[in-house]
């Protein structure tokens, strides 16, 4: 693979687009730092959550807002250090200087897509996820800041790695949305975060009258635990499986 920029774009005008090759599970970069960083990643996320839990319960908005930049950096580092960037560049002019993914990618070829992945997460997926959260029952007339920050954390945990690995190909994203990608640690983390958010709503109606039952603490915990669980399960236990809904 050459390191020359300019990857041939997918011809959009073709009447019958080439069928998408069967997606394969993502493999980590082949160096020990990647392996170490990839396994340290969920540990850092969860311990961060555990350490800031009390502050989160006391002042969710402030805590989530302060934690967001840290999570951005963590996710960028995760993409940068551990994951192969998109094999096929999406037909985006701004990506033309991006280098192709390979174990010996140089700094720019990995840093730029990592940066773009987070940019896309912030501009595209977080607003979309905010809407999804509202649709699934998040408060609309109150707690907007809480819900926006929850969407931000959900988006940060669920999507940068997908952008980084799969780029912007609509068909791949359709596959991702319809659960047709093979499970791996990237996709597992995304699915885990989303499922975790859904399950996180369970304790809210209980009459225990605890502080942590307030919006959005349980859902946020669900997101973090789900993402880390999904990452580990997807990366090791069920790697390569596909979800089949008849």
């Amino acid at each position: 693979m050459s390191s020359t920029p300019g990857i041939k774009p997918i011809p959009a005008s073709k009447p019958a687009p080439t069928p998408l090759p069967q997606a394969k599970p993502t493999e980590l970069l082949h160096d020990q730092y990647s392996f170490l960083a990839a396994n340290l990643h969920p540990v850092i996320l969860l311990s961060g959550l555990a350490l800031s839990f009390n502050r989160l319960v006391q002042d969710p908005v402030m805590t989530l807002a302060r934690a967001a930049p840290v999570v951005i950096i963590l996710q960028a580092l995760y993409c940068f250090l551990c994951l192969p960037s998109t094999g096929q560049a999406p037909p985006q002019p701004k990506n033309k200087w991006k280098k192709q993914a390979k174990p010996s990618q140089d700094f720019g070829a990995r840093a730029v897509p990592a940066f773009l992945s987070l940019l896309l997460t912030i501009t595209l997926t977080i607003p979309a996820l905010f809407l999804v959260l509202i649709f699934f029952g998040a408060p609309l007339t109150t707690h907007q800041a809480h819900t926006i920050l929850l969407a931000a954390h959900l988006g940060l945990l669920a999507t940068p790695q997908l952008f980084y690995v799969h780029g912007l190909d609509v068909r791949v994203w359709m596959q991702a949305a319809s659960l047709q990608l093979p499970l791996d640690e990237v996709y597992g983390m995304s699915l885990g975060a989303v499922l975790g958010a859904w399950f996180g709503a369970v304790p809210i109606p209980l009459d225990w009258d605890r502080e942590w039952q307030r919006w959005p603490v349980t859902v946020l915990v669900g997101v973090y635990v789900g993402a880390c669980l999904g990452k580990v399960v997807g990366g090791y236990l069920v790697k390569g499986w596909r979800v089949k809904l008849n």
Partner: protein
Amino acid sequence: MAPRRRRTTAALALANLLLPLALLVFATGFFPYKPVLPGLAGWDEEDWADAAGAGVGVGAGVKMGEDAPFDKLVFMVVDALRSDFVFGKGGRMGFVQSLIREGSAIPFTAHATPPTVTMPRVKALTTGGVPGFLDLILNFAEGDGEGGAGGELGGVDSWLAQLRRKGLGLGLGLGGEEGETQGGTDGGLVFYGDDTWLKLFPGEFFGRAEGTSSFFVSDFTQVDTNVTRHLPSELLPPSSTKPEWTALITHYLGLDHIGHKTGPAGPAMLPKQREMDAVFRLLYEAVEAQAHLRDTLIVLVGDHGMNAGGNHGGSGPGETEPALVFASPKFASPREAPAEPREGTEFEFYRKVQQSDVVPTLAGLLGFPVPRNSLGVVLGEVCEGLLGAEGWGRLLRRNARQVRGVVEAGLGAERWRGLVEGFEERVRKGGCEGVADGEEEEMACLWARAVGLKGLEGEAEALLAFLYKAQDALSSTASSYDVPRMGAGIAIAGGSLLLAVLAFPVLWPPTLAGCALTAVTGLYGVMMFASSYVEEEQHFWYWTTPAWLALLAVRSLQQGGSRLSLPNGLSVPRALLVIPLLASHRLMLRWNQTGQKHAGAPDVAHAFFPDHHILMWLAVLGTYLLVGAQLTRSSFKGVLAAEAAVSTAFVMVLPAVVFKLNFTQADAPELVLGLGERVRAFTAGLDLVAQARVVFVMLVLATGIVVVGSTWKNEKTSAKEAKITLADRLHPLLTLFLVTQTRAPNVPLFFLLELQRSCFARLLLPPTPNPNSKSHSQALPIALTSLLLSQTTYFAFGGSNSISSIDLSNAYNGVADYNIVAVGILLFAGNWAGAVWWCSAAVTLLLPRPESPAQSKVGSRAWVAQERAKLRTDAAGSAPEAGGDGEEGSSPWMIHITATTVFSAGSLVAVMAACTLLRTHLFIWTVFSPKYLYAMAWAVGWHLIVSVGLGWALWGCGGVV
């Protein structure tokens, strides 16, 4: 294939037959029938013997009961009079408070046992018994508004019956009572107020009476002025037109109405409290001033309280703590009147007593035998001072003997005697501490101790100990569960579940919908064991429904297949239909705030619409317009000529709109505010009953026209012409009926429901037909969808698992005389409107719909017709080869019903198991028992009658295309 199909049908039929059996068997174990001692109590030999010592009785000059300090009673019930309204610093009943400080009034906080609705409370206040939970059903089944007749009390012993007998000079016993009436109504009972009393004590029980109906809770004033206007003349010395009374009973409803409408902090609440205070003052000053009322006791009592939202029915602190005040110038025990409730309580200002304690107390003060079924304990604060030590002791003994009678009736006289004899020896050596084992033995021991102390010091205390123990033991029903029966009920429901599961034509491999149904049923079952999830059940459905919608979208994406073409020529994946579905779902779940935790939080119906009532009426009119359009386009299409169809639809919808407007003006005037004044003036001549009847008669006529017309037309038209199934034709008619049964703020929800149905019609279409695949049937996904949305809409319409959320306002539409069947149907249709609607919608989704050529042109429908046509030919072609295990073996409707049966049976098993395992739980009567009642309504009303019965009829109609 045929035998297998017959087997599954038989299994399904048996499963559905077992459901009501399971409900019945369980209910008889869970709500045991309490025997009521018949007849009126009289003075017995022990009473005579006791009294003889005090110079009263046969031998002496004074008749039994004539030594009592009072001979007349004014019993003033104020509905929902919570303790703090009278005693608290926020209350406005200053005259009552001043009497308390002077000592002429003796206050209590009277505990009202749940269910805190009027009828059972009136029963407790008059008979002294603890009404069983089944009285609650009777309250709603027969009552209107705030109460009703559930098992008349005319023949049951109560202080009313006793006073009536005493006042009228009737003999003992109930037989031939009417014949002995002396001089008409002289000395009888007089009643003004809530007509619940007139239903409980029907016929000629009251000498004079006027009932007020609590039909529209928007009536704050009329219900009360109708009572108060009688009082001045009743308080005058007796005359020939108004003969003397022994008891004057009033029941004021206005305060409760204000609570329901605006909550305890509403603007009309304090003026109403002042009004009630003024009525009390009027009564008290009359008693002070007038000679003939000298020996009159006044009792002011709330039948129940209200919670922070102004509702009642449950066991919240506010709901169970009404005020109770005894007043007379004869009382003289000044006391502090605290402005704050006791530490750690919200509404306990004075000693907390039971409501039933009123009954023996009245018996002591007015001199009549304690009513037979009373579990009350005489109130020392009231009686001791006036009766003197000897009289007080006698009253206590009377009370204790009467309660012993109740205990004996429950245990059997033999057993009781045996128990008491066993303790007689032992109690002489000491108290009952640690001697007795179990409640029955403890009661026997305390009784034996009290008998042993007769005439000695400490007797009163011993008698009270026995009385309180017996009251406690007999009030709690925990001891009277029939656990084996409850277990049998669970087992039968379990058998029904097993049969229903086996009735599925294919169990393996599991489908997405099959797994989802299993998960929903399982999670629901687990949830039933947590009281907070039962109270907040809506969250479960609000939580699972969007997930299922998302799964449907994902599945649609995976299957690829046909796309949805938009008017502008573009096409999008069908999965995008999930967006309007999710959006409408999200809007619906904020429509009515339900559940306990956030009761009263702002929502669309209660916070937004009152401020934007014009917007609400626009949405309501839009919904009616949609129904009208559907009537034209599907119900009457082809049956009537186009012009006739439009005008018929108009003629049907217009009275419905006018009725809704007039009904809302009566029920919730704050939502009308002068709108449609001319329409209302024009229709003022026709009462609401007649207006509702017009709507219903039109519906029946239209149904007849549609059924006959479409059948007749069908014989003539060829296969190629436009065809609409009869189920599709009847659906708009059902919608119009359900809209009529729905409160105005909820009417626009039907617009959203219709939107959801049309989205599902496209989203739930079979994927590209594949004759080899057995999974092309959409029956199971449709069944699960309709189940989830039935539940979701039930809660979105404001339903909950609490008794207080039952909406009675539309249960009497078009019903003038009381008719239990009609009211039952209307009540169910009103409260389960969305759930009933989805049953019909599910059938229209299930039916293979022949598309008309006209509709095919719409484009978005063209492929529907093609796919369905192909599907049918495929199904027809493959059925013979499909062998015994294909889904083709069962009709989609059978699969649909199998799925709803599985859920119904599964949820019943869970609810019954929860009620059995948690039968000693603190919340058993407040959370789990109401949930069981609701589970019964869901299983019988929604599943058996609507889903199976109505669904079957509609599915059968589907054949008449």
